[in-house]
């Protein structure tokens, strides 16, 4: 029988990878999460602040339903979930197999530092003689060859940079834990062959590599190289591509037949990079672009050396693969010309470097000073579109994120630097197309951030001070010069390094922009079922969108896993019958790990026992050597069984890794895991500097900490909360493409879905849109999706039906549906997805309704499709963007209108090339790959005129038979331009269709524009504030079809998390009510941020839904009577801990 695999591989542990992994783990699948870096978090580990809050908040992504399965821990520091295995420093080297059964080869880089032994004490750092630029601080600081990849990571193990390390061995001697073993592989045994027909290149490479201790030979031609390869066993060949006679590619081919294991790196000129990329398909390992210097060459060779000698390969079998490799950032050095002087003028930095400058963990500890001379920064300029929207550097796309992060950085700088700090953003179009972005941008302008429209072409050092000086054309056409303290280049995104390699291994194509190609209209599915793209790996997305696309990817992966018969990860077999200890006086067994003699020398044990004995609840203190080993753990289990304590306190290291082991211990000893606790005895040394790492110095503190934990444990009782049963059905409200997709995603995983639509047929806006900007047929999508929905055995469709009312909580909502005939039925369901969609906003602006030639975008499309308008008869068409949008009261960007205008303009130009099409816009929001079509529209001769909000276009109507006259001020010419138009098309934007009473019935909240308010716009973008209620598509915010489909899959994934449970288990840390003390004042109900509390009027009691309670303690803080108690963190426990801390 085929073995069932309920496991997925997630490649990339950035924010999207974490989201995907958590999604799948929460749904019950096993996950292997890998990242090639030595830390999780991707680029977000370097970005401390996110708008619109200018804070972090990543922890909101942590599981809400089965909280105890993972550690509730800052996600910037680490991720711990019992279904997730994390492999860092690991990459994929081969993918084979079919959906449901892939075999993936993973290669982990040797770290030389054993993370289980390293305590992060840092004693090795002062010993290390090598200093290199610090990648974590974007090169602004320096670090040693042995370093912490991220200073706040947990567990905080050091790692060695093999490229920088000289193998002097100083760290090995310094390490008190014996955690470091340097590679014994000798470089002189690693023979390298350098092939180049230029003697000078051969000689310099030879001397560089020999200086590093490698054994190197040279060959002047292909045949000479082949002859050498026959004689000597080379491990690596560096070959030029362009050589007379046999070229590098041919040499590669022949050398590979001769020695299949030979690693080959090709050296290429800039012009033949494509050849080199092609050659990688033939088996080349990598390529170097000439000219290069030793700093590029040596790390690469060192990497190849390490990888070949110490490759630690492992094969995993998984049912689905999520590729969430993220993106990289444009390197301004790479620009063919480097007009911004990056690297030459020290006060020109990239946006990532600026993030480090304002970061508290950055090189200046968050003070706004210039990194190179320490001078305070008072005047900053942001230059947009560096490496974006620039065909000259291969970017016919908009990076989508830079406008907003520049605004955020400017706001942060203003916040830090005070009111007189000057911040200016030089932009071409300010692309604030996200839901709350326009208002955030407006706020920045009110707070004094200067927005200057114009592209800066170059930065030169001012002759007197050397500060960066900009020369630019202002909107009025005058050329101005201005000097700044700091110039920040808002660098755009690029496909992640290694994208092409990964795509090749997965046998998937890339799209024209170099990102992974996905299936039309899906953005997560690829050509190969079972391999999906998450986050920004297949496109240009910000955090919130990446999280949505990550969840959409996990929904697709879950579907494949389910379809392949992948069972869920082994569930806890049967409920353990725990000992009832509630009537016993607390007896705490303290087990201290001595970790050799490292934590606790023999001599001090007596002292510790004495200190802990002061608290009579401590039954006994025992010492176990290395509790983390199997023997150590068995010793502990035996001790618990023998002594029968009713509380267990463990003093060890890395407490967050104990979650699963405590459950095991509970099963073995019949003691509930809530009655056990682990104290970190090594953790605080993270903050201790390397100079005072004397274990004895801190030892006074350690028994006290144990005593505090014992005091807390004393008051802990076994949680008396029952798991809530789940009625495992879902309700989807709205039968547009989002609703249908959500219903299918849930139903495909085997759960029944009720799909409610007010209209008489499914389809929503897809009925009129026709096709997307990139030419995908939406009618076919609609037909196919509607057919699948109609045929699906798990989906019940209710057309002509409204949701009349609803009540209930996550796990069991009750919704009342009313059909067209007035018939009413009530459904019970665990979760609801609101996909109520939206429509085109109505308007009376620009003479709409007074002349037959004035249309909205939808009306124009319908008129063309119905043949009421003939493109040939339209000689002049004027399109006006942002009608009633991006200004109060509808101060948001609908993000679909600019691409729609371009789509319609291109279609017109195709049917009638002579037609004049004029688009009047404020900022063209052609974000992402839509930029390509913007370029195309210009190339086709569409005229774009930017207008300002204070000077809107004017539409004059003379009579129904006369053309409409539009007048607008051309900003470049500074003169009014009049156009007599045969048709005027108004982009009125999107109006949401989510009725307030429906949202209120489910406890969801609408924002001021009528869209659903997310629980958190970045970290929980499809959740409502109420657990169990999700939203997708236009109900959530303006989105195009592809994005709406992704939100639908993401919402379905969030619902599946709940549906996968028969019962919703409550976490240990859950609030309860002492009804005898409760005065029913209701303050706790207002204070609860998770709406987990309600007043039951029949029982006259405040009830807590244990599945919704997240254990935050807000209720305990507001309760005047001490009736709200957080199990495990009650007031007596806190006082007990304080007593012990001070005693």
């Amino acid at each position: 029988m085929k073995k069932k695999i309920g496991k997925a591989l997630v490649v990339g542990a950035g924010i999207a990878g974490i989201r995907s992994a958590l999604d799948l783990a929460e749904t019950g699948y096993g996950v292997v999460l890998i990242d090639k870096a030595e830390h999780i978090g991707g680029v977000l580990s370097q970005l401390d602040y996110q708008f619109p809050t200018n804070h972090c908040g990543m922890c909101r992504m942590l599981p809400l339903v089965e909280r105890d399965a993972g550690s509730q821990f800052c996600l910037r520091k680490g991720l711990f979930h019992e279904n997730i295995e994390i492999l860092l420093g690991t990459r994929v080297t081969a993918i084979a197999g079919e959906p449901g059964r892939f075999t993936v080869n993973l290669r982990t880089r040797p770290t030389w530092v054993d993370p289980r032994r390293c305590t992060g004490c840092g004693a090795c750092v002062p010993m290390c003689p090598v200093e290199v630029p610090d990648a974590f601080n974007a090169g602004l600081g320096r670090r040693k060859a042995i370093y912490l990849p991220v200073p706040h990571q947990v567990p905080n193990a050091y790692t060695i940079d093999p490229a920088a390390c000289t193998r002097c061995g100083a760290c090995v001697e310094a390490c008190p834990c014996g955690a470091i073993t340097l590679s014994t592989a000798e470089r002189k045994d690693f023979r390298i062959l350098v092939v180049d027909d230029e003697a000078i290149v051969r000689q310099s490479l030879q001397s560089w590599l020999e200086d590093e201790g490698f054994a190197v030979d040279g060959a002047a031609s292909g045949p000479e190289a082949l002859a050498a390869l026959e004689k000597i066993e080379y491990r690596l060949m560096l070959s030029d591509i362009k050589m007379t006679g046999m070229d590098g590619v041919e040499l590669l081919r022949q050398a590979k037949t001769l020695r299949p294991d030979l690693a080959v790196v090709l050296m290429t000129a800039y012009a033949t990079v494509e050849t080199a990329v092609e050659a990688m398909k033939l088996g080349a390992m990598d390529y170097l672009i000439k000219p290069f210097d030793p700093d590029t060459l040596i790390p690469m060779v060192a990497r190849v050396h390490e990888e070949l000698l110490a490759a630690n390969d492992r094969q995993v079998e998984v049912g689905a693969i999520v590729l969430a490799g993220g993106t990289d950032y444009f390197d301004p050095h790479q620009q063919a010309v480097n007009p911004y002087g990056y690297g030459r003028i020290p006060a020109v930095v990239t946006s990532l470097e600026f993030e480090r400058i304002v970061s508290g963990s950055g090189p200046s500890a968050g003070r706004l000073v210039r990194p190179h001379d320490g001078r305070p920064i008072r005047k900053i300029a942001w230059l947009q579109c560096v490496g974006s929207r620039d065909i000259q550097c291969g970017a016919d796309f908009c990076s989508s994120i830079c406008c907003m992060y520049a605004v955020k950085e400017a706001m942060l700088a203003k916040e830090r630097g005070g009111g007189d700090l000057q911040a200016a953003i030089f932009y071409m179009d300010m692309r604030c197309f996200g839901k709350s972005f326009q208002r955030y941008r407006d706020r920045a302008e009110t707070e004094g951030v200067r927005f200057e429209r114009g592209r800066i072409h170059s930065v030169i050092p001012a002759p007197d001070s050397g500060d960066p000086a900009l020369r630019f054309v202002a909107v009025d056409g005058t050329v101005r010069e201005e000097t700044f303290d700091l110039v920040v280049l808002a660098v755009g995104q690029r496909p992640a390094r290694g994208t092409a390699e990964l795509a090749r291994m997965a046998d998937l194509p890339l799209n024209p922009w170099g990102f992974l190609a996905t299936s039309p209209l899906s953005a997560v599915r690829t050509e190969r079922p079972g391999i999906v793209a998450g986050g920004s790996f297949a496109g240009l997305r910000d955090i919130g969108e990446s999280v949505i696309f990550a969840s959409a990817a996990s929904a697709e992966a879950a579907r494949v896993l389910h379809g392949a018969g992948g069972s869920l990860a082994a569930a806890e077999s049967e409920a353990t019958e725990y000992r009832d200890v509630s009537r016993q006086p607390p007896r705490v067994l303290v087990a201290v790990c001595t970790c050799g003699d490292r934590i606790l020398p023999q001599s001090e044990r007596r002292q510790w026992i004495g200190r802990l004995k002061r608290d009579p609840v401590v039954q006994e203190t025992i010492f176990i050597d290395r509790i983390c080993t199997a023997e150590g753990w068995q010793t502990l289990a035996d001790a618990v069984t023998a002594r029968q304590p009713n509380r267990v306190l463990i003093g060890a290291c890395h407490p967050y890794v104990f979650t699963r082991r405590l459950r095991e211990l509970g099963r073995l000893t019949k003691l509930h895991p809530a009655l056990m606790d682990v104290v970190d005895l090594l953790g605080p040394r993270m903050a201790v500097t390397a100079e005072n790492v004397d274990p004895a110095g801190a030892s006074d503190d350690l028994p006290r900490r144990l005593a505090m934990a014992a005091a807390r444990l004393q008051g802990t009782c076994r949680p008396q909360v029952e798991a809530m049963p789940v009625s495992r059905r879902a309700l989807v409200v709205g039968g547009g493409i989002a609703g249908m997709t959500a219903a299918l995603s849930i139903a495909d995983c085997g759960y029944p879905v009720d799909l409610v639509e007010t209209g008489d047929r499914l389809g929503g806006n897809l009925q009129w849109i026709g096709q997307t900007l990139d030419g995908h047929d939406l009618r076919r999508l609609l037909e196919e999706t509607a057919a699948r929905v109609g045929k699906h055995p798990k989906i019940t469709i209710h057309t002509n039906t409204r949701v009349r009312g609803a009540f209930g909580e996550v796990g069991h909502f009750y919704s009342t549906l009313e059909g067209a005939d007035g018939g009413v039925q009530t459904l019970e369901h665990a979760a609801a997805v609101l996909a109520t969609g939206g429509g085109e906003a109505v308007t009376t602006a620009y003479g709409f309704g007074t002349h037959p030639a004035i249309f909205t975008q939808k009306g124009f499309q319908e008129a063309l499709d119905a043949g009421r308008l003939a493109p040939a008869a339209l000689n002049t068409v004027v399109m006006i963007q942002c009608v009633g949008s991006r200004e109060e009261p509808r101060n948001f960007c609908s993000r679909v209108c600019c691409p729609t205008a371009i789509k319609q303009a291109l279609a017109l130009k195709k049917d009638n090339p002579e037609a004049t099409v004029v688009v009047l816009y404020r900022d063209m929001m052609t974000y992402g790959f839509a930029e390509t079509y913007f370029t195309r529209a210009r190339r086709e001769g569409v005229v774009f005129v930017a207008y300002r909000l204070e000077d809107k276009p004017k539409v004059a109507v003379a009579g129904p038979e006369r053309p409409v006259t539009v007048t607008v001020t051309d900003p470049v010419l500074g003169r009014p331009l009049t156009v007599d138009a045969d048709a005027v098309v108004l982009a009125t934007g999107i109006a949401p269709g989510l009725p307030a009473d429906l949202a209120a019935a489910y406890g969801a909240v609408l924002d001021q524009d009528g869209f659903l308010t997310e629980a958190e716009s970045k970290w929980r973008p499809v959740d409502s504030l109420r657990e169990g209620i999700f939203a997708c598509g236009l109900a959530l915010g303006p989105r195009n079809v592809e994005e709406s489909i992704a939100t639908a899959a993401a919402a379905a994934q969030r619902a599946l998390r709940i549906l996968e449970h028969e019962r919703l288990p409550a976490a240990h840390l859950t609030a309860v009510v002492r009804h005898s003390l409760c005065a029913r004042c209701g303050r706790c109900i207002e204070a609860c941020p998770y709406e987990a509390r309600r007043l039951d009027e029949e029982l006259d009691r405040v009830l807590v839904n244990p599945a919704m309670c997240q254990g935050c303690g807000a209720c305990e803080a507001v309760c005047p009577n001490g009736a709200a108690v957080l199990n495990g963190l009650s007031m007596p426990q806190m006082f007990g801990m304080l007593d012990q801390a001070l005693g």
Partner: protein
Amino acid sequence: MALAEETAIELGTMPEAAEALAEIRAMVQPCIQCGTCTGSCPNEFAMDLTPRHMWRLVLLGRTEDVLASRTFSLCSACYMCTLRCPRGLPLTEAIGRLKQLAAPRHLPHLRSGDLFYRNFIDSVRRHGRVREMEFMSLYFAQMMNPWLPLRYAGMGMRLMRRGKVALQLPSRGSGRLAKLFEKVAEMENRP
């Protein structure tokens, strides 16, 4: 499409020019009016329209406005704008085409530049190299401005003192480049 508050020539007085302009317009159509060209231009201070302004007029098909300006005639073909244009447009080449478009029209405001170029190249054609004194003499003569030579007198003196130019009388010349010019003209006229 029309520009309001119009003071220049009416639209459509030079239809054949409008057609020629369409080709130039096609070269610069992807322009996003970012102004990089203006910011990069070393001669911008002397121009009546900034390069961005001029390209905008080209895009709007305003042939007369473009030809009425001196902007394109002041381009010294340094290629800075072409190098920096984020759209990668062949701006310098397009300016060259504008100059070609304007030359046969003998536009009065471009007369000085026209004559300068023409006499320069005629000198090359005749002698196989530039004979500075002859070329300048003919230029002054054609400009018919008695004060003009005075403006160049200082520079001429300095150049003569250093032996860079010598007094020369116009002559038919002995250069053999005429054939080359004829050949090129023949090739360019070829369909």
